[in-house]
């Protein structure tokens, strides 16, 4: 499916562009004021559903256009290298979240076993150690991506203060929520589809082993 030609309003104003990108990367806004979302809604880029604001298809296509780097450029090549280093860790963070939510036998983790939880926290530390060099490199070639490390660290801090939802809850800027946003940005920047992304992750995870 190729994206329909999308134009932002005639004078593509900076604030509006930023807002569209933010809304698309987050997937939704909750608890935003009308002043924040009205310009988007009027431009046909957002729809309001009760307390939620969702991006329209038009918004998704627009954000894709704004973010996409020039195909074949050296910059694309460097971001791709970071993306490929990101993918194996991307697999691990999902496994960590899964282990936090479910015990290996599939039953829900009721967090009564501090040894088990500490083991999961250890693998989260491994993920966090592994993603830092990747984000350091990404920051040099993708403006603004430095914020992700800060957001991940904040989520980790809150998690360590005992608020379990900061790992994987979809209702706050949890570690997983921020991670999903980073992932989505990489895909839009590189123009990679979810299907390609899955295939490439699988290849990198299995191919890098013996």
């Amino acid at each position, binding site marked *: 499916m190729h994206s329909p030609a999308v134009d932002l309003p005639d004078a593509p104003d900076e604030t509006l562009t930023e807002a569209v990108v933010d809304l*698309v*990367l*987050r*997937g*939704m806004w909750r608890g935003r004021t009308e002043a924040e979302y009205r310009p988007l809604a009027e431009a046909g880029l957002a*729809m309001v*559903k*009760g307390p*939620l604001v*969702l*991006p329209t298809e038009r918004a*998704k296509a627009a954000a894709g256009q704004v973010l996409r780097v020039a195909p074949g450029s050296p910059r694309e090549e460097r971001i791709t290298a970071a993306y490929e*280093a990101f993918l194996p860790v991307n*697999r691990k963070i*999902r*496994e960590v*979240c*899964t282990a936090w*939510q*479910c*015990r290996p*036998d*599939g*039953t*829900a983790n009721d967090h009564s*076993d*501090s*040894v*088990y*939880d*500490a*083991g*999961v*926290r*250890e693998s989260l*530390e491994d993920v966090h150690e592994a993603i*830092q*060099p*990747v984000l350091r*490199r990404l920051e040099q070639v993708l403006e603004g991506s430095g914020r992700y490390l800060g957001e991940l660290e904040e989520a980790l801090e809150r998690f*360590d203060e005992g608020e379990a*939802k900061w790992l*994987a*809850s*979809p*209702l706050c800027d*949890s570690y*997983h929520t921020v991670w*999903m*946003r980073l*992932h*989505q940005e990489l895909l839009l920047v590189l123009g990679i589809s*979810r*299907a390609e992304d*899955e295939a490439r992750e699988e290849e990198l*995870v*299995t191919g*890098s*082993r*013996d």
Partner: protein
Amino acid sequence: MSVTDREAGPSTAVEAPGRILVPFGQGRIRGLDADELGAHGAAMDRLVALGLPVVPGLTVPAGTSASLCDPGTAEAAVDLVEQLAGRRIGDRARPLLLRLSASAPTEIAGLPPDLACLGVTTASMDALCAVIGRADALHEVWAATVRMIAEYALDVPAAMLDDAVLDAPEPRTRIEALLDLTARHGSRPFPDDPAQQLALAARAVLRRWDSPRARRSRKAQRLPADLGVALHVQALRIGPADRSGYGTAVSRHPETGLLSPQGSFFRGVRRSSPPPHTSEPLDRLTGGRALLEHALLTLERHLHAPVSVDFEVRDDEISLLAASAQQRPPLRASVCLAADLARDGALDPEEAVLRIGPAQVQELLHPQLRLTGGEELLVKGLAASPGAAAGVIVLSSERALEVGADGTPVVLVAHETTPADVPGMLASAAVLTGSGGIASHAAVVARGAGRPAVCGADGLRVDRAAGTVSFGDRVLREGDAVSLDGRTGAVYAGRLSVSVAAPPPELSTLLDWADGMRRLGVRANADSAAEVSTAVALGAEGVGLCRTEHQFLGERLPLIRRVLLAADPAARDEALKALEHAQHEDFRALLAAVGNRPVTVRLLDAPLHEFLPAPGDASDAGEEQRAAALREANPMLGLRGVRLALLHERLYPAQAEALFAAWADVAATGVRPELEVMIPLVSLPEELAATAVYVREAAAAVAARTGVVVPYRLGTMIETPRAALLAGELAEHAEFFSFGTNDLTQLTYGFSRDDVERQVLAGYQERGLLTASPFARLDPHGVGALIALAAERARGVRPGIKLGVCGEHGGDPESIAFCDGLGLDYVSCSPHRVPVARMAAAHSTPRERHDESGSTR
């Protein structure tokens, strides 16, 4: 003091290597326990004592573990492992490597990672790979080992190592890059000598154990900051990949719980996180699995728990690397094992019962789709988030929010999920995706939001533009109903009902034993023949509460409405006749299902407003007026129960006659239910006395009509504080009491349940004013004190009076223990809680106050 200081200078430790290097199996003989040997050393001792084959190796006890950083001690360790293994490092035909690991006195998290292969050199690597028969079998494992030693023992900056790893994704070049970096920036180059490698590895492991992240992990587990670890040096015998490898196995099948080794097996060099998709099933083990089964069975009998082992396969022979009781075995496995051990005489049945708690029984009876066999299975995906749900298909967040807005359950179906699907998932009853596994974003989000999910459903195609989902050739549209089970991964067409699973056979066995242990009876609250059958199948001894008002709802509503709103006595009598007839049928089916068990039938106790038409809905102006006159400001405290019966004097006699006549019918078929007729919402002994007359007259009327004298007991519900306080006086008219603890809790606290549950209780629990909702857990100090007092006063008047509880508390384990303590005769709970109540009653019997969390206050 630090680990590093030990390295310099000749060690004094070598003087007594026998105390420092302890071969597996010899710890206990030398007077060492798990504090010194570590959990792993102690486990290896146990395996040797049980005569099971173990991988050769030794332990450096916790108290002296730093001495392994000394090259002399390390040299002695290398020699000893070579002797134990009967191989030498560097031998080209039968090569040997070493593996270093650490363990604490108990199983904990946050130990340093194992250093998987020591004794490799750049020169020997190719020869080793040739023996294994796979070109790069060793590279990645060795790269990880070199990296950790470089960072923690040779002080190469971590950021440099990170960069080297990112720049060299290919393992072989990665090793060269890491070795080069170490030579240039490390405190010394990476050595070739195995003993020197081992000494540095020990130093790296101990430093890692001293790092801030390891300290934080100890703190999180409330372990002492200065906790020591034992070090273990194990032989890693290298052999051809077609006959060698490593694996893990557990003793029992996670789904069925039966003894049947489950696990996986990998070829190549052992590593702590094996690559995905490379595992092979255990039956591929070239030497067969008999020895593995023997080891698992021996261990289970020894440890009385489901067990897990790590093993190595070397030239087709299995030897054990580690073994322990499974930390958190699957529930089915624990239940099956308890039953197995008791059947074999290894445990008393009572001990077996006490190993399984009521909460675990509840978990085994999880909600699932009710299948009859005729369902259309659309697809089977991966079970990604537990729970079962049904709803209509939506294909976007937008539709999910629109359709779900009025409470219609929806199932979000997507091929893959992006952040834009998260709001839709939150609005859905369940999630179904075509791609991704149980660790996909969709699965993580679904579990985070508590939604059942099936992911990776093969063949699922979503066409958002056309509004269709296809499963192979079968096409469904947005708006069609589907049902899914997030525990099995099954997706069905249509809306199936969700119900509680039946207990698996081994749980039934344990529950039968539990029945033999408990004093307290367990009955069920059941209003229809179908509910009675369910309850009986789940082990209920009878019905503790049959709410007859449910017989008045639905299509019977117009009948009771006519009784209440009749313009004149003739119209009322006619309506009553119709009602009596309908109830007679209901009671006959109910009593037939009850069989020879006790059944407590509560005469009508619904608040009046449930029967009145909504304003403007009455059939004519007169009825509208009469309905308006009957509307109350607070129906729960108004014309209800016995109060309504005393106003509409034909109501209870009509119900009682229908009940007794139904009993006579059923008795003719040879079934004799033990009938208990219960008057609700009594607060004056006089109310009970007056209504008791109605019931007696109804029995006499039926006897006159049918010739059958129906045996029954008459009793009352204790729902108001006044009734509890006047229990002595009430007992003069009542042969049994049933404590209606829901209403008794509302009236004792002055809580309106619906209101306080929304506004008050959560806040109270957050602030610590209440530890649990008094509607979920019987309040022992207030409501419980009233019950205790009522029981005492009632027994003073009528010593043998039968006492039961029929509120929702009858299914809560702590409340059940409390009722057992008061010597009540039975609890009655909803049918699906019956197994939980049976187990809870058995656990409360040995009154040893095994306080689980001290949450009752």
